């Protein structure tokens, strides 16, 4: 009798656990999944019944990929210049962030200097600033530096600002990877016949590569999805990035927006995010788990 009781209780506990997991993790995700499913279905459907139900298969919503489309915003709109703008910004941000944060992370992890701890706290505090409150100050700064209103230079200015906002956190992440490399490993390489540079190249770099990879993906994506800075500082329509372009396409209410086209563009815009997250899940997990286990 007591044995049976215990078994029932164990079963109950197990069921309760599963229910909690479903409530906490699965149910909140359902609306998000429904929205994505709707987006995908919508982008391939010819007509929409009652504004909700998709029907009839077509590829015409994706025609912006191979032809110019006429929109309320621009008569013969080609998406590729905007893709190029967005790529320019995102790759630039990623490059700057990796360059600075890998060096800063090494210094923070390996070098002893006065006020190192204070500096690290300060860096984290920097990350806490939302960019909105900096908009005006940054505008004045960019203007004074001649990085405003001059074609691609404007985008470059935004690139620098965005990288500046990303670098603190990235430095911390990379510092964690450097921390995990014991001094013994560097010393062993020195004894084995490496110069300092070769130690970095053959031992340290391969071991922090996951960290650099993760940081570059994160900063690429944050550059790719940057909206506020571009929306605020870019006045030349030719220099819009994808998020701002889509925003203008949606917000033009003078005529009926072409929902099918918009959903397809939206999906196209999220593609890099989806690709990166699905291919680099393991890498991203390692940021949180950490460690350079062989």
């Amino acid at each position, binding site marked *: 009798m007591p044995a049976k009781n215990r078994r029932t209780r164990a079963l109950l506990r197990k069921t309760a656990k599963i229910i909690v997991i479903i409530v906490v993790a699965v149910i909140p995700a359902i609306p998000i999944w429904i929205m994505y499913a709707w987006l995908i279905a919508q982008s391939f459907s010819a007509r929409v019944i009652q504004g909700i139900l998709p029907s009839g298969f077509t590829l015409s919503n994706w025609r912006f990929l191979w032809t110019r489309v006429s929109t309320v915003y621009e008569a013969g709109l080609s998406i590729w210049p905007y893709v190029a703008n967005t790529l320019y910004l995102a790759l630039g941000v990623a490059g700057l962030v990796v360059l600075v944060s890998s060096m800063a992370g090494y210094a923070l992890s390996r070098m002893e200097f006065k006020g190192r701890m204070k500096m690290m706290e300060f860096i984290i505090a920097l990350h806490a600033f939302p960019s909105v409150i900096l908009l005006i100050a940054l505008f004045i700064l960019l203007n004074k530096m001649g990085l405003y209103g001059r074609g691609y230079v404007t985008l470059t200015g935004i690139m620098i600002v965005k990288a500046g906002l990303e670098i603190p956190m990235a430095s911390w992440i990379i510092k964690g990877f450097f921390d995990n490399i*014991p001094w013994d490993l560097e*010393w062993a390489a020195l004894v084995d016949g490496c110069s300092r540079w070769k130690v970095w190249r053959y031992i340290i770099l391969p071991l922090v590569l996951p960290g650099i990879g993760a940081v570059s993906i994160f900063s690429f994506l944050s550059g790719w999805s940057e909206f506020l800075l571009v929306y605020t500082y870019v006045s030349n329509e030719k220099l819009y990035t994808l998020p701002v372009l889509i925003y203008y396409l949606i917000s033009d209410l003078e005529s009926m927006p072409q929902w099918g086209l918009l959903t397809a563009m939206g999906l196209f815009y999220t593609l890099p995010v989806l690709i990166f997250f699905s291919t680099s899940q393991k890498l991203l997990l390692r940021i949180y788990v950490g460690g350079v286990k062989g």
Partner: protein
Amino acid sequence: MVRVRLENVSKYFGRVAAVIDLNIHVRDGEFVALLGPSGCGKTTTLLMIAGIYKPSRGRIFFDDEDVTDLPPKDRNVGMVFQSYALYPHMTVYDNIAFPLKLKKTPKSEIDRKVREVARLLQIEELLDRKPGQLSGGQQQRVALGRALAKEPDVLLLDEPLSNLDAKLRVYMRAELKKLQKELGVTTIYVTHDQVEAMTMADRIAVMNKGRLQQFDAPEVLYNRPANLFVAGFIGSPPMNFVEGSVVERNGEYFFEAGGFKVRLPAELGRIGAERGEVVLGVRPEDLEIYRRDGLGGVEASIYVVEPLGRDSIINVKVDGTVLKILAPAEIRVEPGQTVRIRFKPSRIHLFDKKTGRRLTYS
């Protein structure tokens, strides 16, 4: 193979002195152990020989070449770290081949050497694995292989056995010693384990608080320790110490401390008497236990008995001081029992209480 010479080497980290005025000459092909408690500066010394740390003062010579300012890569030393420090992203093969690749050795030559070392250390079947897939003992051998493959002039070992389990440690002790003699490579071995140092090394440098205490062959350290530290550090169970003074009565010398009264050999007694306050030291195996009266010696009561199988450590109390005695297991005594103990006169050491130095006579 080279001689290694440290001349007045000191190392300071900020205001902390890690190594002070160290003078060590290691002969060609010799196996020298640096022995001491943790924090005594032995690993710092090793890292200075490797070239990782630069001495704050003093010079280091390999043969007659001053290598003090040479970077590690130009010294041709092989080193095994306590953590083994294998490169986790490389296979065992690449780990061993790494120093050879840096030397720009031809590929075929590298392959030959790696396989030769792997055969020597019996790790041939592990060459394709990554360090993360190896056991501690295997990692240790790979680390040794990496250090040996480059055919170093000096082999530096930093507590290489301390992360192995007890059984493997005893096995590797003999293996390492045999290997070192076969290769004839000058070897400096850092350890805090006096048994390792005693069993493997040709000579042992005992260090404490950054200073060299004594540098000599194991049996000399054991039988003629230079000071209280060496006497207490070498040997297990450790030497017994009793503080007291030497007095002369009718031409005979006695060590006295409360209930203790031990007759000393005349020469030792004479120099002991000159000092006054001394510390008497005697090893556990140099004390004998008697159950009967009338044979002289000191009266003692049994405190605890620790049987070890082959022999027992019998702890006795004499006037409040506990002494350890190594006795054959056949001697059966019970706690609380009164016995008499006798000191082997020729095996008694006297140390100056102030300086800690052992009193010697010629």
